[in-house]
């Protein structure tokens, strides 16, 4: 763990990634203290200052109802991070467990589980999420549900392949020989050997989850106003390009910073831990 962190810090690209992640996380956590206008995260109207270009005290400008964009971006990070954490916290255990069982047990279990996974994989992710959101109310919880539904099969695929190769290893046979149960072999022998790959994929995915969630809200299927969300901020501002450029550019850059940070770290982790696809 220490060694991994050391290698990540020595490489300038991954060090930059770590810094970006730190900036995003800290600004989300301490949004209440950093944001110059904390109330602007909600339904506030200030027509005296609407649609202002970037100028003090509105460093990123204001939106069409006069809310400070900088403050709103900080609070939008909060929602993006919570969404990323929740989606991965549900999708990863589900996907990993299914992949592990399918890969290790084989036979009918494998056949049934992997075909179900294939069904989910065969639908383009955004289409799947969009159709789910079309059926359900567009709320944050349902957004998480939709993104989770499209995310777990990738972990199933990853762990299934890992488990298939790990189960041929000598230690699996050795454990079976001394009478270890199937659950023990799957979760205590094979799973720990898959952890590096899973962690790497999670880091890479965190950025993508934020991106997909933003895409959904860009299409109007995510978090609903007045809650600040990076995707819907970009969507709202896009109608006023290029005159009110700050309405789209700053939320867009905010998405970029978060996704870029997680990708840099994820790539470096893949090199260090030798995992991923």
């Amino acid at each position: 763990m220490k060694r991994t962190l050391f290698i990540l810090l020595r490489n300038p690209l991954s060090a930059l990634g770590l810094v970006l992640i730190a900036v995003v996380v800290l600004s989300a956590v301490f949004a209440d203290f950093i944001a110059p206008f904390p109330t602007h995260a909600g339904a506030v109207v200030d027509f005296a200052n609407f649609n202002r270009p970037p100028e003090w005290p509105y460093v990123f400008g204001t939106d069409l109802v006069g809310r400070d964009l900088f403050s709103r971006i900080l609070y939008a990070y909060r929602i993006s991070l919570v969404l990323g954490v929740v989606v991965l916290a549900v999708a990863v255990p589900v996907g990993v467990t299914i992949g592990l069982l399918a890969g290790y047990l084989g036979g009918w279990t494998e056949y049934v589980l992997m075909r179900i996974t294939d069904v989910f994989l065969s639908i383009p992710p955004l289409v799947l999420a969009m159709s789910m959101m079309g059926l359900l109310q567009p709320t944050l919880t349902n957004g998480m549900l939709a993104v989770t539904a499209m995310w777990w099969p990738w972990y199933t695929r990853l762990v299934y392949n890992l488990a298939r190769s790990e189960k041929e290893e000598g230690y699996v046979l050795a454990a079976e020989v001394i009478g270890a149960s199937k659950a023990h072999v799957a979760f205590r022998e094979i799973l720990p050997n898959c952890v590096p790959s899973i962690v790497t994929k999670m880091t890479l995915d965190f950025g993508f989850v934020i991106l997909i969630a933003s895409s959904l809200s860009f299409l109007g299927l995510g978090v609903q106003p007045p809650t600040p969300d990076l995707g819907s901020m970009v969507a709202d501002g896009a109608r006023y390009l290029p005159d009110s450029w700050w309405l789209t550019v700053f939320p867009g850059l905010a998405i970029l910073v978060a996704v870029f940070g997680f990708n840099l770290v994820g790539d470096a982790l893949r090199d260090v831990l030798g995992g991923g696809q």
Partner: protein
Amino acid sequence: MTAPTLLIRDLTLGFRGWAGQVDVLHGISLHVGKGERVALVGESGSGKSVTARIVLGLLQQLKTARIGGLVAFEGQDLARLPERERHRLRGTKMSMIFQDPTSSLNPVYTIGAQFHEVLKRAEPGLPKARAREKAAAALADVAIPDPERALDSYSFQLSGGMNQRVMIAMALVNEPSLLIADEPGTALDVTVQAQTLALMRDLVEKRHTSVLFISHNLGVVREFADRVYVIYKGRIVEHGRTADLFADPRHPYTRALLAAVPRITGGGIPEIEDVSDSYFAPMVVHEGCGEPGEAG
């Protein structure tokens, strides 16, 4: 007469595939007495390793496997034993050593943690500190210097020879009555292999552990085993005490096998026939080596 530790009679094995049944074992019989070291020798694909797996009950779970005949452990027919009883035997009364020691240890756990798991098979509630003491003693038995340090190491931090010794210590720590060694140390170099074999021989001698030793290496078998079964294409072709069999190989296949070992003094790779009708000649049993319960 007490029952032998392991008795196999007329064991047959076939695998059902799409193209019908493929027979692997055609009725082999062998036994391992208490404290006896018996070798099963044959070429790749002759059915050595599957025999070991049947004894441990690993192939029985396979739906495609068709198994016939008797496998008895300390007088108990394993096929009649309930699944729970069989399961209890594994890792406590029977254990196994594999070809490649390094891959047989899980790289994400320390040696100490894996010892703890093994010891818990025999004593489920064993506390960690007590397990550590036992493991350290077991490692000292296999001549590992500084056992404490080895217990805190991961398998990839130890050499192949060290790992092999760790495997031997683990296999013997629960004092099994039968140890199955499936080509132990084939993945190691010759000197290390010799050392660990000598060590293993001393240990099993001291503890009166019965050993079924599976190998294709005749030199190793000669040093290690009391009795030898030669297996060819799923049939036992010759059976005798080690000294007798090496001094006077009677079956054509055994002769070919002995002739096939390249000499260290040179002379090229010996030429022998790959397949010969004479290899299918009936089994030769040396004097005084009959199966228990049979005449001769």
